[in-house]
């Protein structure tokens, strides 16, 4: 079954159609082909959220998955994010949960919180 989606690469916003054999049509440039194939075969997203932190100045500390995770794992990852709490100091890029939900991605801090 063919899938239709809007290309997000540039303002053109081409309406792409990707068929079962991964042929992409509707694209005005080659970047659309790549995007269309990826979205249909293995859509991935970076998850950004916060975790609880025992800090004097903040209740929560922002975090992200250091690489994009499969789209269908977003809520699984969020379940773990919601159960995680940390204590300062924490530095940007510091790993908070390794291989979160078995996605291969690490959950890392995106803010420095010293106390």
């Amino acid at each position: 079954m063919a899938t239709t989606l809007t290309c997000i690469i540039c303002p053109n916003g081409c309406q792409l159609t990707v068929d079962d054999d991964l042929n992409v049509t509707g694209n005005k440039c080659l970047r659309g082909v790549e995007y269309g194939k990826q979205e249909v075969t293995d859509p991935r997203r970076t998850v950004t959220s916060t975790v609880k932190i025992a800090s004097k100045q903040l209740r929560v500390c922002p975090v992200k998955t250091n690489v994009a995770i499969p789209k269908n794992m977003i809520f699984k990852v969020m379940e773990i994010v919601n159960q995680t709490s940390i204590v300062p100091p924490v530095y940007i890029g510091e790993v908070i949960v390794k291989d979160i939900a078995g996605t291969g991605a690490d959950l890392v801090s995106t803010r420095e919180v010293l106390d």
Partner: protein
Amino acid sequence: MGAMKDVIIIGAGAIGCFVARYLSAYRLKTLVIEREPDVGDGTSKANSAIVHSGDDPVPGTKKARFNVEGNRMFPQLCEELDVEFEQVGSMNVALDEKQREKLFVLEERAKQNGVPTKMLTGEEVLAMEPNINKCVTGALLCPTAGVVNPFELTAHAMENALDNGVELVLRESVVSISKKDGHFLVKTNKNEYEAEVVVNCAGLFAEEIAKMVEPIDWYIRPRKGEYYVLDHFGKGFVNHVLFPLPSEKGKGILVTMTSAWNYLVGPSSEFVDDKEDMSTDSPTLADVKAQALNMVPSIPFNQQIRIFAGCRATPSTGDFIIEPAKSEPKFINVAGIESPGLVSSPAIGRYVADELVAPILKAKKKDNWNPRIKPYVHPLKMDIEERKAFVKDHPEYGAIICNCEQVSIGEINDVLSRSLPATTIRAVRKRTRAGFGKCQGGFCQSQVLWLIAKATGKSPMEIEYEHEGSIILERESK
């Protein structure tokens, strides 16, 4: 709080607050019951905030009497209660020859009411109000009219009453009134109180309260008015309160500065069924805009920062109702206080206290009544050297958190710790203007919320915006 009171005042709008203030001069135990989390939260907060001169009411009516008396009280009153008030004067503006003739009717009425006026020609009006419609043919200038901060007026009157020993309960609605051993038993949704005298200042709901005591032959019909609030876009866009000529529907769509020198346009006038209907609607506001532009064609509506609506408590009798119930001389109705209610409120409060309540109770005045409240500090109104010195000694007043109206933590903490403390976001906004500006709290609301939580010892999730239950934060995310 002892159960037996001398007086219970139901409702803490402008009327209830001023009845309380003037009763606080007597050696009486007075209790005020208000259903909202703050005072002045009904009609008193959503009106034109005009201190009318008294040129408009029909001579001989209570409206005429209390308007003119109230107007004369304002300069001293606002000084005592530290309320923003500017006696800018008003103009009834005629835009054609026929309207100009009607100005003379108004002039005559003003004369009978004892209100000073001056008749202006079209050229004179244009010289004073360059933005007015060029076809202006004349205006009746009433120099004693002014604009007041209506939020400060009610809150400071109540604060003054509380400082002088009056008690206030908020968030309680009166559900029944009965007689017990010759005095009144007032039941609320939470408590019971007893008093010898009850004063009904329940505004839009004065009818419902009055009916708890006896059948009545009058009613209150809510008459909604919708307004635009514009930003401070420069002092002097208009220099007076500008009225069109009054009609049967009221004083018409006015264009005015507020006491804080932003601008207000409105109100519409429409009877509604629901006394709590404070909703706005686009066709009505479009009509308000069109009428206002007819009088002042260059109003910059792109400076709009808020729209709001309020309901006037219009009485079926056509005049203020200020009298004891027919069967209960110790139950006093103060009802139907529609426009010019705000300007009349101090005079009504004083009359009710001095002429109606005090004689019943044969009350004596206190020797130590203080008509003043502790002044509020506004660093931005100080000159720079004075401000530097003050903030040096009071660092909290240097910490400005409201971007648009430049209000400091010091000013907010002050209103959180007075005898009448603000406990909601709206209450802080009304007292300090934090959140009243162009961003409407976008920058400061979170800060105000934490300050209220800290001052009240409550969780941030319990802090309300305005009415009971109007919380802002639903839960902790983690």
